[in-house]
């Protein structure tokens, strides 16, 4: 059952788990990004635990869906999602960004099982996904392709090259999600280099544009379902999010874009989420199984 299709409550619970993982792995690495990973946690969870047909451990499965984070810096979210979905033991999260571990600062195909294409330079991922979608279509496959982008990232011209391409080739198996958290490294996106009106831009580039509260699980489920219906053009979901979502002292503050919490801050954050740094570290250390407990069943 590669599409898990968890229920809304299960997804909420899972997103909380992912957030706890993010904070914990960052605190251990003492390096990495907090803001974007937390804003991506909800739609990421919907993707990994409901929307996408994934077969962890069988990367060669030609039927599975494809996904790629163009914002390579949100590895804390990517790795937590992958770990929870069973790509590798959760204990690996504690080796984030270390020389010994396999979880690089930015996604690396030859280090981490489950990564298809390496990333880390912004603006390139949508093009990669275009190639995946086109290749799948050449093979007569109906596998879908999901691309996660940032809002600051929209400033990269290559995104608009890819946007043009995807519309030109009517790549309707392609669904992009933009983590519209209104922040980037140096501050507010609208101050740094305004991207508004973003929906108009994507429409003018020929895309089916959907907007959703990026922390509202039912809204996200609805958007992904709608994307599947769109024929003849690709879909982009503007997921309106809050940077640092879920940690009171991080929310909506761009200064958390690229720094990890200290151990103390992490413990504080985890207490807000109903656990502690020690307790959650213990979970990661010992919870070696595929993270989806057998009691959790998909809806289909």
């Amino acid at each position: 059952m590669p599409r898990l299709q968890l229920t809304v409550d299960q997804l909420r619970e899972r997103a909380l788990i992912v957030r706890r993982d993010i904070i914990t792995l960052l605190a251990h690495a003492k390096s990495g990004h907090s803001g974007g990973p937390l804003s991506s946690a909800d739609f990421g969870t919907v993707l990994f635990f409901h929307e996408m047909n994934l077969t962890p451990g069988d990367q060669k499965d030609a039927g599975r869906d494809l996904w790629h984070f163009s914002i390579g810096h949100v590895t804390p979210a990517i790795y937590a999602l992958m770990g929870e979905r069973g790509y590798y033991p959760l204990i690996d999260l504690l080796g984030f960004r270390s020389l010994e571990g396999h979880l690089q600062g930015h996604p690396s195909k030859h280090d981490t099982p489950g990564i298809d294409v390496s990333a880390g330079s912004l603006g390139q991922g949508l093009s990669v996904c275009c190639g995946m979608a086109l290749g799948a279509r050449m093979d007569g496959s109906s596998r879908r392709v999901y691309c996660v982008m940032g809002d600051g990232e929209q400033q990269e011209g290559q995104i608009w090259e890819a946007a043009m391409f995807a519309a030109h080739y009517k790549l309707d198996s392609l669904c992009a999600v933009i983590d519209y958290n209104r922040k980037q490294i140096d501050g507010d996106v609208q101050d740094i280099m305004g991207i508004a009106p973003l929906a108009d831009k994507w429409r003018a580039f020929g895309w089916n544009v959907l907007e959703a509260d990026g922390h509202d699980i039912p809204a996200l489920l609805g958007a992904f379902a709608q994307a599947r219906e769109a024929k003849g053009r690709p879909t982009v979901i503007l997921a309106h999010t809050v940077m640092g979502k879920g940690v009171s002292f991080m929310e909506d503050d761009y200064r958390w874009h690229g720094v990890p919490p200290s151990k103390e801050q992490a413990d504080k954050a985890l207490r807000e989420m109903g656990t502690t740094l020690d307790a959650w570290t213990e979970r990661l250390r010992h919870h070696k199984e595929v993270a989806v407990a057998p009691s959790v069943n998909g809806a289909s």
Partner: protein
Amino acid sequence: MSRATPPSPAPAAVLANPEMKKTREGFGHGLVALGETNPNVVVLVGDLSGSTNVSFFAERFPERFVQVGIAEQNMMCVAAGLASVGKIPFLATYGAFASCRSADQMRVTVAYTDLPVKIAGAHGGISVGPDGATHQAMEEIAIVRSIPNMRMVVPCDYWETRKATIAMAGDAHPYYLRFGRESVPVVTKEDTPFVIGKANVMREGGDLAIIACGVMVYEALVAAEALASRGIQARVVNLHTLKPLDEDAIATAARECGAIVTAEEHQIYGGLGGAVAEVVVRQHPVPMEFVAVRDRFGRSGKPEELMAAFGIKAPDVLRAADRVLARKKPGA
């Protein structure tokens, strides 16, 4: 190092009046041959179907041909995406754009992921002619060689370009193939052995070695012929693969000849000459002279005229040979 058959000097008559053929046609024909045998081969182009000769493939296999328009960054990463789902994508544009406009995409998405994307950089070198500096790519060797996982071939003529095109499709790593615009002398044969990473000795000789790639292999042969008429035997090494480098062929040349001239249609810093020098000083230091474009942008003009004006014709190779021979240690 494999020895070309025959390694004997090309007859002066052939050098004086060579068959002329375009390397880019070798690329185009190689693609068609691949298309016939390998259903995974797909071809992308950035609004330059005609001048890169991917039009040959496009006509035969339209369903495996992807027009990307003028968007080289996107093209590089679309190719990467295609490769990630099992295709063997060739992408074609001018070398100036293949190497520079999408360098970050080549580095991060293609090379770091080590995907079998084959990058064809057309219009390499000053011999591009009237289009002028912006279109005369002369930095590709330096750029591509610096990026880990990349492989690079600079074939010398039609046949070698055809063979290189076919050979690189069979290796699951990223490649950069550099070729030119004009018709150039055919100096190999259909059955001349071609092995990626193995230099071909085109002419034997022990007084000095001329190591060249691309169209400069012909210029080197012409210079060697002139040297022979003065009783000097120059070994001519066709170093078609710039990465991985045939270090043995280079070290052997240094040891056996004691002096080296390199010849390339490329900037002098970080090109074939630099690659050879890096091996020479580590393995067997000998005097070297470089025939290359001397860190200048190109300009408009006729191809032959420009090659002369920029100092990369056979007489320039000859002068470099004389310089290096004068520096060669008597006993070496």
